[in-house]
């Protein structure tokens, strides 16, 4: 009877939304507000994905990022700038949306905002996402720590690792540009 009710009620949304972009930003702000440091304020900025950046992206994703630009948030209130990225990548068939904050060239926090694949939802579990905290890049722009995978979710895990790498590379790019501008 319960199954019949489910069938008659019709299909609902396939995509599972775990968190909005604003909620993720709020989480980042809370995470960076301590007794010593006040809540950081974020500005929205844009990075245009020119040929050189797309070529670096391609070396990470095996394809270009399907946008002409990426809007990101940046806060310069603390000694170390914080950037927040909202990035999408296909796991097996459908795009997965991630929110990633980066500070001091390390991932501060990564969350699955929206999951649209039919397998591999486990990547959104906080215990899995926690593995990415404080992870950085090695000289080959690979993650410098191991991530324990999930059987049957290889491609979703791979998408999450790639997005963490991309956020770290983009963070480094915009901060380098920011510092060059400051020194001029």
């Amino acid at each position: 009877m319960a199954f019949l009710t489910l069938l008659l009620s019709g299909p609902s949304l396939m995509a599972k939304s775990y968190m909005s972009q604003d909620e993720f930003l709020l989480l980042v702000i809370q995470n960076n507000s301590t007794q010593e440091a006040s809540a950081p304020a974020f500005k929205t900025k844009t990075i245009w994905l020119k040929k050189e950046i797309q070529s670096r992206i391609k070396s990470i994703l095996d394809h270009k990022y399907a946008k002409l630009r990426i809007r990101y948030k940046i806060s310069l209130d603390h000694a170390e700038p914080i950037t927040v990225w909202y990035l999408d990548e296909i796991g097996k068939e459908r795009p997965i949306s991630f929110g990633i904050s980066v500070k001091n060239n390390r991932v501060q926090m990564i969350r699955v905002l929206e999951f649209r694949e039919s397998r591999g939802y486990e990547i959104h579990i906080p215990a899995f996402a926690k593995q990415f905290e404080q992870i950085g890049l090695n000289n080959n722009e690979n993650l410098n720590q191991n991530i324990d995978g999930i059987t049957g979710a290889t491609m979703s895990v791979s998408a999450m690792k790639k997005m963490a790498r991309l956020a770290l590379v983009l963070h480094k790019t915009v901060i380098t540009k920011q510092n060059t501008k400051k020194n001029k």
Partner: protein
Amino acid sequence: MKVKNIALAVAGLLSVSSVYATEPTNQELLDMLKKQQAQIEALQKKLNKTANKVKQNDEKIETTVTVIEENISEKVANKTTVGGYGELHYNNIEDDKNIDFHRFVMFFGHEFTDSIRFFSELEVEHAFSGDGKPGEVELEQAYIEMDLTENTSLKTGVFLVPVGITNETHEPPTFYGVERNPVEKNIIPATWWEAGAGFNTRFSDGLSADFAIHSGLKVLTEGGKSFLIRDGRQKVAKANADSLAYTARIKYTAIPGLELTASYQLQNDVTQGESGADANLFTAHAIYNSGNFGVRALYATWDIDSAAAKAIGRDVQEGFYLEPSYKINQNFGLFARYNAWDNNAGDSVDTEKKQTNVGLNYWPHENIVFKFDFENRSGAQDGNGFNLGVGYQF
């Protein structure tokens, strides 16, 4: 800045006027000022117009970029998807040498709406099919999946039975060893697909369950292969559906790197009316990956309630394997696998077969793998040798 320039120009005009004009009258000065004021107003108007144009151009650029990005996204997230995998094997066991394009598989999927999709898997096994040829063309999956709620979906059609490790996840880069393990092949029996309907539901993060009603096995009741589970697969090809099967699975994946799963299947008659034989399958497995280490362990057992099966020891068919592995880096991994299984476990004779494989995988890309392993067969079979393979997925 432009206003400043205009002011300078006005100041310049005034100073020039003072050099060349000889004693202008008050009226002349007033006229000049009026003229200059008109010029300033005209320039200001032009400036405002330019600022408006810049704003409009910004809006146009924003709209164009948004439309281009939407088009790119639509192309990337195509509603119809194509994928696949394949594997070429070379086996050399006791000088019996074979080379075989074991599997060439294509996936086709289509998303009708956000919550209704189609998925299919078409396979060519052993490269060449036809009368007297070694290969087969098989439709292993073709189902419609509907999301009923955020946590529950329904599959209807031909789908892989939710049992074991490799039955549902068997793309070559995802497992060690050239050939799939013999326990899941001979006991479960992977790859195993049936037609019917199956629900998947998530109770909480990392705890999910499946329940499926589907077509069942039809084992042989005579000859040397009678009651062998693997030979009972009807492959949904004009299959006898007198007796359906019911499969339930529970899966726990809440801890990173850990998977604990158990499945149970009941079939009222695995002979589909030939002689009557209730059968139950129970299988459980654990997978744990931590850092570079990994381990997989699986146990499966069939209990067939039939006097004819009992008479030849096939009322119990069971097996297990244990596979530790170590990933040296993201490109290389080593493994060892010990398999033991017995399709005649119900008799008093020692008919257990054993197989040990030790080898390595090399992934030049995360979706491509080269494999090598040594194989040692013992127990109710023997033979030594090695296997080589290359596989891919996309």
